[in-house]
């Protein structure tokens, strides 16, 4: 690809992002509000553990090409909703569509194949495998992953070479290229976060779901992680992430969804959210001292 082409593509991405932002500018900051071009749209999603209702979301849409933050106090049901949407948990009821197709019946691995890839709150590096193998295992449609084809070297060798080049490019971008032959278990916590994100990109996802990407990451690395997340948007991916850190949300999120007690209580741009009394109530309790209202 020539430089001018790359530039043109980047311009397209920036434009797409700008367009998404403009589209969101007209969206009212109310829970469950409709978006112009949702990549993900969930309706009536409910998950109960016995008598405890962990998630009960009436409606939620995520705009394509944006970075959306999912926030809320501990126990609000953010991770449970994440698990439901990515197929890692089954809802008691509810439906949702991902990229125009019903995703309710898809299992976790099918969601990943459909283009929605998640990371985990506690990073899941495959510790006793090399960093490169961690990347290669994520490559989609490798024929050699079928039992019969695995036996015949020639059937998957070519694909493997291509995947390896792609993996090394991604590792380069995430500053892990020199670690590619180390075991993933030998990486630091922050490097594992980077590896997990790089690994997710091997699948060329349409949407990336990050479960607390900043948890336990030192400030220096935080900045670089933020840049990487912004790059995802520039490349046309949609990002939904769970986070607590309001500074980070202000810096990168285009849209914020606030959950409390299993429900979406409000949505809006970061500025709208930080001045919303319902959010303060949700975090500090409805009857906290010095309530503004």
């Amino acid at each position: 690809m020539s430089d001018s082409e790359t530039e043109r593509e980047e311009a397209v991405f920036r434009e797409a992002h700008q367009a998404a932002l403009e589209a969101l500018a007209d969206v009212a900051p109310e829970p469950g509000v409709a978006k112009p071009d949702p990549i993900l749209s969930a309706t009536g999603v409910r998950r109960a553990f016995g008598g405890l209702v962990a998630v009960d979301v009436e409606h939620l849409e995520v705009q394509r090409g944006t970075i959306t933050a999912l926030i809320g106090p501990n126990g609000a049901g953010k991770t449970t909703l994440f698990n439901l949407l990515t197929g890692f948990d089954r809802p008691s009821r509810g439906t949702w569509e991902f990229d125009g197709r019903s995703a309710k019946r898809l299992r976790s691995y099918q969601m990943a194949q459909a283009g929605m890839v998640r990371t985990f709150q506690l990073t899941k590096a495959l510790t006793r495998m090399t960093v490169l193998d961690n990347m290669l295992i994520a490559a989609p449609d490798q024929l050699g992953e079928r039992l019969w084809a695995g036996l015949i070297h020639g059937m998957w060798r070519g694909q493997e070479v291509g995947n390896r080049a792609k993996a090394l490019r991604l590792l380069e971008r995430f500053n892990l290229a020199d670690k590619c032959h180390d075991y993933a278990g030998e990486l630091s916590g922050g490097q594992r976060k980077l590896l997990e994100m790089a690994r997710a990109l091997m699948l060329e996802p349409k949407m990336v779901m990050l479960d607390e990407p900043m948890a336990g990451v030192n400030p220096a690395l935080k900045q670089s992680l933020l840049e990487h997340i912004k790059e995802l948007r520039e490349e046309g991916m949609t990002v939904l992430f769970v986070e607590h850190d309001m500074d980070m949300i202000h810096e990168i999120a285009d849209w914020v969804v606030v959950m409390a007690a299993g429900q979406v209580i409000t949505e809006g741009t970061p500025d709208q959210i930080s001045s919303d009394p319902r959010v303060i109530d949700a975090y500090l309790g409805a009857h906290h001292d010095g309530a503004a209202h």
Partner: protein
Amino acid sequence: MDWHFVFSQALTQAIGPTMLIYAIAAIGLNVQFGYTGLLNFGQAAFAAMGAYGLALTVVAAGLPFWWGIAVGLLAAVAMALLLGIPTLRLRADYLAIVTIAAAEIVRRLARSTVWSEHTGGSDGIRGFSEPFFAMSPYSDDANWSFAFVSMENGRLTVDLGIVDFQYSDRDLWIMTVGWALIAVFLVVLGLLVHSPWGRVLKGIREDEEAVRSLGKNVFAYKMQALVIGGLIGATAGFVFALSRANVQPDTFSTDFTFYFYVVLILGGAARLFGPVLGAALFWFLYNLLSQTLNQAIRAELIPAGALSSIQVGPLVFFLLGLGMVLLLIYRPQGILGNRRELMLDVR
């Protein structure tokens, strides 16, 4: 003390028919436990599927030998599916519980009196191995000698001076087939574990949720590993049944499975040659210790009051158990394992 006899016995057994059974069963376990992380505590039952599948088909149903082999393999696949479908979606320890229970059910069904006219109950079945030995190229009346190798009425002696190896014609045929099977299994597994398929298995061993999040159907891979390991286990059952020319239910107890684990861990799990080396070493040490103690008692080096020859068996297992504990403390990765790999924190 006849050291020549002690070492000859130990080395003869280190590559002999019994060792082959353990090596093959442990290769199957290596696919399941070593590479995929599946805790199958019922490998003895997979061996029983092979052994009883063969024996029942040939003796009770009167069908040809190869049908017996086919039935044994199919029974192992059926058992893998039966155990895997309900448990492989659950956490790893459920498979362990279910397989250990299933193995006991299989053993108790085999020894129950309900079907004893077919299964022979606790006496087991014999009389199915003749078609196998009829295929043997080794005759029991061969007599020849060449350099240090000699054959006397079908008994092979390889005399290396310091030690000698001796095998009957039946042992030789079992060993030929057994070692050929091991060679085939290791070649096929070698190709598989170094393929992208094998990489997915290792990923599942490390963290199946992560592998699932990367778009792999973890359940299908675990099932494939369980079936392949079970098929290899059934093959070990064939070798076991044929080498003893009978099947007995109580030989397929949970101890049998645990010895497969000992062999696998001793040699090094997730190492291609681990099970073979582990089995050879285990049977070498077992025979070395028992023969040494027996010889010492016979030579009255150990006072008669301290240890009788009946107590040698349990003492040897005690010593091997102690050895296993020391191995796990000082070399937890086994003989062939990679310590650097094992020392990584596994979450």
